């Protein structure tokens, strides 16, 4: 490989790595920060969704399991 090609490849890889790092997903969610978007109320935090999801699961899971068990008995 010629030096110019190596330099071009190095530049391409560096640029690619830089671009992907800038907007790369997968960073841990900052739960205490205000929510993004226009749907929220001012006081809402990102972590509110996780709390609500756990509460909903506690409410729904027994009902769904009972319902499913009832349907298999029929």
């Amino acid at each position, binding site marked *: 490989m010629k030096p110019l090609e190596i330099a071009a490849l190095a530049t391409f890889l560096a640029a690619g790595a830089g671009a992907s790092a800038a*907007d*790369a*997903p*997968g*960073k*841990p*969610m*900052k739960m205490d920060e205000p*929510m*993004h*978007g*226009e*749907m*929220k*109320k001012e006081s*809402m935090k*990102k972590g509110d*969704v*996780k709390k*609500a*999801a756990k509460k*909903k*699961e506690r409410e*729904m899971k027994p*009902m*769904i*399991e009972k*319902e*499913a068990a009832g*349907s298999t008995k029929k």
Partner: protein
Amino acid sequence: MKKRTMETSLAGHSPGLVRSIERRLFLKQGLSLGALALLSGCDPTDDEGVQSLLKGMSRWNDRAQGWLFNPNKLAPEYPESAITKPFPFNAFYSEEEVTLVDGKDYKLELEGLIREKKPWTLPELYGLPQTSQITRHICVEGWSAIGKWSGVRFSDFLARVGADTSAKYIGFTCADDYYTSIDMATALHPQTLLTFRFADQVLPPKYGFPMKLRIPTKLGFKNPKHIMSMFVSNEFPGGYWEDQGYNWFSGS
């Protein structure tokens, strides 16, 4: 001095006049209550009774929308040239906080009124007959964008797993903790797709890898991304935004 009450001051007047004055008083008192609430910074809608009433009205609204829903009416489809580029990212978190799901270990969990509850891997899901659509995503925030999604017809998937399609609801839980639910009629609509691809590429994380339910007849927040599990039930599951007061049906 004799204290004048409403009864004494209105005595002798015609019943029609009394009713008219009572109406005016009611309106004035209502306005005063509203002004007082504004001055005190108190939100009357925080009251539990008011909340309960509003929720009841919203559920009635859902039922009315369900009756009006035409399961055979299709949402408009568009040519490739109409696709919005770049397609907007939208979530309750930033783009860099998008949840990364490991496709190798991924299994879609099934619960509730479903006969075959075996979890589905991505290769199994990718192996199902696929279809594409170019439709408009309409956000409750007031913007819209056209995109191309590909995947399996949700009605086909539900038939394959033996879902009880006489049940009322299908609920979804997602890797980013979001949750929502839809009515069965919408689930069976021919344009409701369980999608794995966006713009002919594997669904990127920011658009919901590994799986997004695409429903062109409903608002964007009824289109869950990063779906990890689903259940069929007759128990009303609500949803995150829906439980905050957004209309549950949110569709046409």
